């Protein structure tokens, strides 16, 4: 099971404020599908406006990145820059 953490704002909007989840999914796409099945509408948000940190490494615009068991997955704002 991947340990999944949502931003508080997203959690307030979709998960009654709960930020920490354990989800069995092979990659980011499957993980978002699982979350969307539990909390309809969150998938669209996670697919369009976020980056994902998997075990500390940040992926912009992720989809197929693996989410191994015991990995730590954080949904973050997409990082911009000047």
């Amino acid at each position, binding site marked *: 099971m991947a340990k999944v953490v949502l931003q508080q704002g997203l959690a307030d*909007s979709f998960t009654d404020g709960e930020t920490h989840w354990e989800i069995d999914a092979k990659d980011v796409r499957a993980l978002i599908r699982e979350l969307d099945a539990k909390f309809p509408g969150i998938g669209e948000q996670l697919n369009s406006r976020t980056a994902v940190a998997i075990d500390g490494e*940040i992926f912009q615009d992720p989809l197929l990145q693996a989410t191994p068991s015991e990995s730590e997955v954080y949904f973050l704002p997409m990082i911009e820059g000047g």
Partner: protein
Amino acid sequence: MGNEEQQFKILNDSTRDAKYKWVGTRPVRPDGVDKVTGRATFGADFQIAGMLHAKVLRSPHAHARIVSIKCERALALPGVKGVITGADFPDISPQMRAAGESPVVVRDLARNVIARDKALYHGHAVAAVAATSPLIAEKAAKLIDVEYEVLPHVMNVADAMKDDAPVIHEDVFTKGVEPKPENPSNVVRRFEFAVGDCDAGFEQAEIIVEDNYSTEAVHQGYIEPHAALVSISEDDMATIWCSSQGQYMVRNYTASVCGLEISKIRVIPAEIGGGFGGKTTVYLEPLGVMLAKKTGRPIKLVMSREEVFRATGPTSGGVGHCKLGAKKDGTIVAAELTLKYEAGAFPGSPVQFGCMAGLAPYAIENAKAVGYDVVVNRPKVAAYRAPGAPMAAFAVESAMDDLAKALGVDPIELRKKNGSKEGTQAHYGPKFNRIGFLETLEAAESHPHWNAPLGPNQGRGIASGFWFNIGGNSSANVHINEDGTAVVVTGNPDIGGSRASMAMMAAEVLGMELDRVKPIVGDTSQVAYSDLTGGSRVTFATGKAVIEAAEDVVRQMRERAAKLWEVDVDVVEWQSGHAVCIAGGDHQPLSVKDIANSAGRTGGPISGKASINASGAGPGFGTHICDVEVDPETGRVTVVRYTAIQDAGRAIHPSYVEGQMQGGAVQGIGWALNEEYIYDDDGRMDNAGFLDYRVPVASDLPMIDTVIVEVPNPGHPFGVRGVGEVPIVPPLAAVANAIAAATDLRMTDLPISPPKLLDAIDSK
């Protein structure tokens, strides 16, 4: 060195990694001579037969409803060929997002390009006119009759957040708060990032420091104003020549705003005279496309410096509060950071990045950062190096200085004791992989500057900073020419010397002499999509694409040599720019030139390519030391010595890394001491020019000393980390901390201009 923790070094000529021929050297940049002799072609230099000149009519009000626009008088002027207003652009749904790396709200982007029902800031484009000369266009713009209903305006977060504040957007309801608001607000969104339990943390604290801080909006201050030339062919293909940080960004945004297919636009990048984040959006290009469509003629638009100040994005001003709690041994047990940033006239300040970056240098068990994105009647903010981070670091690093003083410890020691390292969980979530923050502190501690004697009225400050760094989408082509020279084509404008670093990385992989590798910045039709030049991503991400493309070429050249020698490719190695057969036999090594000469007979031209979404960008950290001298009679602050220290991972071209560090430091010093937008009571900017908007110039400053620390990033073949963002993060607090040391005054409002400091000195 066997110990991973010790795998870093301070770069100098004797510590450069000898296994590389080009990486870490300092060749002259390929674009350098053209730039210093005036041959380089910038946005405003392009001319085309039959082109018209366009001028933009801008709102004289900070907030006003547009009742009517009448263009008859302007159109009647001889030489005028067309006028456009917001009504000429397609309607766009609020849900539409532009293609590209950071999907922007197209409706907001379009309404920033040209106002529709309301003008939202002084300088907001309201109409544009094309004529046969710039003078006629300027005269015609004054003949466009606009009737306004002037509305009350708000210029800062304090006023904009009041319950009775004039609301700028009736459809903005604050997100991220409970219960969901029923009334529109200027507060667009609340963000929160937290780890641990802050209340419990502060309960444990034996010493607490806290203060309020404020910073002013500052402009990126690039030397070259925005400029664009647009031509539309008979088959409706638009070609745009312009200065920007991303030709694909210009293409995508312009297509979205104008309702065109992306394939209908080709963008040819000009040389760019600075961007620093300010050229990551479009202002003129959609106006040019619509005027070109309307008039049937090519359109040229060039902003004046005044227009740049009045209508293009600065970064946010804002206010903040920072509270730190520590044990007497210096362990920080709790931190709270609150930030409220001006977004300008449309949602989207970088406050969430400030919340994430401000506390990132420190491993704090209980930490919380809360941010508010607030719209005001100013130009929409644009990115500026490490967007959002310098203002946050100003608060945190000033508080760190106060905490060190309260604890009676050395400020470097306090930072080392609490500094983030590999395995530290950032308060915004993920754990850091290999990073080099502590190494920058060690380099600062051992630098002669740190212990050098100070003169009268002088003080020394130190501050640190962080930026995430990003990868993203990049493409590269590497071609081998018939004579064995090579061309490297990438899709990123060269802002900080990237042509040189791309060529150096390609030459390193190919084993070729650098002067036989020619780097080219391609247009949108020459190489596949690349995210824009920004976020300190190009040397990292586009560099990875170049390396992959060059490796593709090496693979092909080994295959061609194997065919010529009639051996298996597995026994052909690539050594120092030559194919070498390791299976024995009478096979003389083949050079690139040899293989290129016979390419037609072994399968055709040799060309490698790579298109990637690069991950593995290593976070960047820096630490700056600043000495100032304060004139107690005038309040003037002079920076007398400055040292910037930064982990670059691996410096491909050390001179250009140093240039990034020096440039960021200087921009941060200007932010700390001088730069600010001054508005009159009607929300009109009073200092829209470099004479009154004071950026530091060379005579204001000492040579900025630099120290490159190298903690290689495991996510890049050569260990590269982005370097362009970090150096603007520490200076604001480094300067303020130096002033505090010199005067015993904690200045919490930027800029620390002479009148402000003199007031504080006189009030002591």
